[in-house]
């Protein structure tokens, strides 16, 4: 899949709370095809302390308006700087990067936690276009940690799990009543302990499972070899061979 380096214009911004914001970015021309689970490398303008691009997953794609939406959690100086951008400014992206979700299965469960819910919206829409309604389980410490909620409603059966019980069932996503229904494929993105727990359950129950990893990156295109995961076949670049991996390739990582 061809990669591009392009200036996008920020045409929308939404601040959910002090942790999460989203940017709607418009491409000057027709967007290329983008797989669910792929990501962009965003140049961070206006902060001399930030040199490297930041990898951000693609939350939503609108091919009619040629826009991408990025849902971002503020975790450091790069994302903090991005949170200060305003509508009208331009943002330079290298995209679309990485290997996305496979979109297989009929009885499908999506499990997202925190910022990891970001790629699941585009994934839900891709399933919808195949006529498949997944079960979508979204988790977080509190309701504030699940910034996007009702946007998922048209695309599947939704369940929420929060540690404090402020939204949906109280507890972890893996304790949710919908989690142990019968599925043939599980797709997950979120905190590492959550993904490992989901992947372990899937493997114990012979369910196909894909996990989307989030390692620190420099180049985003498989050149610097900084973002590797210790896969069963040795070190693999999360940016190029991932970020989405079949859990079967990561038993080392899952059991560590």
């Amino acid at each position: 899949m061809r990669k591009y380096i392009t200036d996008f214009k920020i045409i929308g911004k939404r601040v959910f709370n002090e942790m999460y914001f989203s940017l709607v970015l418009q491409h000057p021309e027709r967007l290329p095809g983008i797989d669910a689970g792929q990501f962009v490398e965003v140049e961070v303008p206006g902060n001399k302390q930030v040199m490297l691009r930041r990898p951000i997953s693609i939350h939503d794609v609108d091919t009619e308006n040629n826009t991408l939406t990025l849902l971002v959690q503020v975790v450091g100086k790069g994302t903090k700087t991005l949170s200060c951008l305003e509508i009208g400014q331009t943002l330079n992206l290298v995209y679309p990067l990485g290997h996305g979700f496979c979109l297989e299965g009929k009885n499908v469960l999506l499990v997202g936690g925190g910022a990891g819910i970001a790629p699941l919206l585009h994934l839900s829409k891709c399933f919808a276009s195949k006529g498949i309604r997944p079960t979508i389980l979204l988790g977080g410490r509190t309701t504030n940690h699940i910034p996007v909620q009702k946007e998922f409603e048209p695309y599947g059966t939704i369940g929420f799990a929060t540690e404090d019980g402020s939204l949906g069932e109280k507890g972890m996503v893996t304790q949710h009543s919908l989690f142990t229904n019968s599925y043939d494929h599980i797709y997950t993105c979120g905190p590492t302990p959550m993904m490992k727990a989901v992947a372990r359950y899937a493997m114990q129950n012979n369910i196909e499972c894909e996990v989307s990893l989030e390692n620190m990156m420099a180049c985003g295109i498989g050149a610097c070899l900084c973002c590797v995961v210790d896969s069963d076949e040795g070190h693999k670049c999360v940016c190029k061979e991932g970020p989405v991996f079949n859990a079967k390739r990561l038993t080392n990582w899952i059991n560590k």
Partner: protein
Amino acid sequence: MLETKIHNLTLKNPVMTASGTFGYGEEFADFVDLNRLGGIIVKGTTGERRQGNPYPRMAETPSGMLNAVGLQNVGVETFCKEVYHRIKDLDTNIIVNVSGSSIEEYCKTAAMIDELDNIPAIELNISCPNVKKGGMGFGVNPEMAAQVVSEVRKIYHKTLIVKLTPNVTNIVEIAKAVEGAGADSVSLINTLLGMAIDVEKQRPYLSTITGGLSGPAVKPVAVRMVWQVAHAVSIPVIGLGGIASAADALEFLMAGAKAVQVGTANFIDPAVTMKIIDGLEDYCKRHRINDINDIIGII
């Protein structure tokens, strides 16, 4: 206008890519006309496949980054059998960075690369700070540097570039030692040994604690060392360290480098090498320079 020579190699222009920052070139094919480059120094290659160091291997620092990749690579046999055939027909100088932990390993790898028709040179990496054995160990001692270069020289017949580490008291001494041992060119600088600590987690950012610093932060150190070495040896010097623009490249050329390598900047702008070549052309036009060699070493 921009053509330069490094020993027997003719470069269309002085802009090459630094080892470990440009993969095998293929990763950048969507962003760069690879055939427009003066040369591509491909990923450091060792006698056997290497896994490199554990994650995390990278930390961003002011105007730079630390890495501790540790020479992860497919090994020389896979390079020769697979990678070489994918890239050998590119119309640029494809140079293999040869790394190792022992003189035997350097010689084994160099001998196998010597057999490849379309690889006109190797860059002998005696300066990697991220491997436990060998690597920089050879590059910090003039006698050991000379020894590894002279052994490789015996079995390698094409252009032999030696990549030097800045983590020494006197880089000129090392440069002279490898020149005396038969190097055709030296490239400098490899990364500066550095360290960064996450104070919230109270632990180093890198799994290896220390790593190699690169990026604009190291450029003034690199320009100084290139200038010192270019005045002390008669073989051509290739300059690198923090180059991100044509002006940066020109600093190295004026300091005495016959060519330059662009490294970390490729991560930030994958098309940066094309902009640097354009910028050099533009500079020559603006200053009415017909031959870039006219400004090499003017300082």
